[in-house]
């Protein structure tokens, strides 16, 4: 299942659908880095609002995406983690360490705009 990725100015917005298989996640990682290079994006928002489970593989893959994108000089923000999902994650010790998170798309964009306004 391919994740739709939209361009919003200097940023990319990837909206994850509900059930992502491990393969889908690996695909996403590959696709995001390629798109960042192609669009010369400054930032990426990955919207996981529709994800009702976040397991350790998904968490690790998202961390890897953020690290790879950072090597291209761009910033990643994960948005839309649901309260129930967040609760389950911390109980399992899955923390998305080192990855910027925000409440929703609006907050994510505000973060990126703020960060790149300062750097401009």
């Amino acid at each position, binding site marked *: 299942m391919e994740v739709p990725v939209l361009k919003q100015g200097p940023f990319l917005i990837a909206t994850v659908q509900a059930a992502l298989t491990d393969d889908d996640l690996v695909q996403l990682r590959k696709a995001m880095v390629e798109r960042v290079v192609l669009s010369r994006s400054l930032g990426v928002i990955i919207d996981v609002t529709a994800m009702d489970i976040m397991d350790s593989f998904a968490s690790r893959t998202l961390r890897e995406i953020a690290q790879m994108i950072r090597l291209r000089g761009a910033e990643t923000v994960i*948005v839309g*983690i*649901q*309260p129930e999902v*967040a*609760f389950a*994650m*911390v*109980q399992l010790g899955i*923390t*998305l360490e080192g990855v910027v*998170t*925000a*409440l*929703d798309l609006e*907050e994510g964009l505000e973060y990126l705009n703020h960060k790149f306004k300062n750097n401009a």
Partner: protein
Amino acid sequence: MAKDAERSLRGAMRHHTDDPSSYDATAVLLRELVSHLRQNRTQLREEWARRITEAQLLTAMSKDEIFAEATAVYDQYVEALETGTFEALQAYARSLSERIIPRGVETHEVVGIVLLLRDVLARSLFAKYQADFRKLDRILDAYEPAANRIANTVAVGFVQERERVIRQQQEAIRELSTPVLQVRERLLILPIIGVIDPQRARQLTEQLLRGIRTNRAKVVVIDITGVAAMDATVANHLVQTVEASRLLGATVIVTGLSPEIAQTLVTIGVDLGKMNTVGDLQGGIEQAERLLGYKVVPIEAAG
């Protein structure tokens, strides 16, 4: 429910004799018993009320109150014996319990007074039928299962009502002590007071995360001034709450750690780099405001 009561009464009675006409005989005996209890209503109630006071039960109530309730229980008792149905008695037991529980009446008192009534009535039967032992035997066969059922109904009714009250109070306490308060745009405060057990900690976390999403909070101040102590399990819950809040894009500031709790956190090796702490609530709010880009200045007096 009524049919079950009658059936169990009859079943208990039939156990004592195999004579098929015995049920009718038992019914006759019960009627005789009931009319005896009605005729001697005054003395028996007074005797019972006297024995209640003697046994130092229902000390939370006045003599008049005891007599009034004794009358009501007595009449319900005789009614249950007569009809073999217990709904009215159950309903009465519930309403009695609602009245006396706030007065501090305890379970042993309720069980005690019902057993005393059973004794008072049994004694009066001994007195009446002492000349005819076989008749007394048959009357007791009719009386005992019913009396036991009645004692049980009243005691269980009381205990169930107590449990219901306790559950209600627990719910009320739980709701009282975990408000999530918005004090500025994007700023929430969670003042925690009292004892946190793992269940409450879990409830707090869920409530806070929902609050962060609903209020779109960017900073949360969790104040634990009112929490005396915390064990390792609860401390870990607190750390988890901080982490989960971050996943929703909110920064948590914990304020009001007592010396004991500070010691617990250090001893159990909580990663303090993950926790943003400030001494007191005031300091916490000030830092939160800075994080949100607020500056608080005094209003200059005009002129």
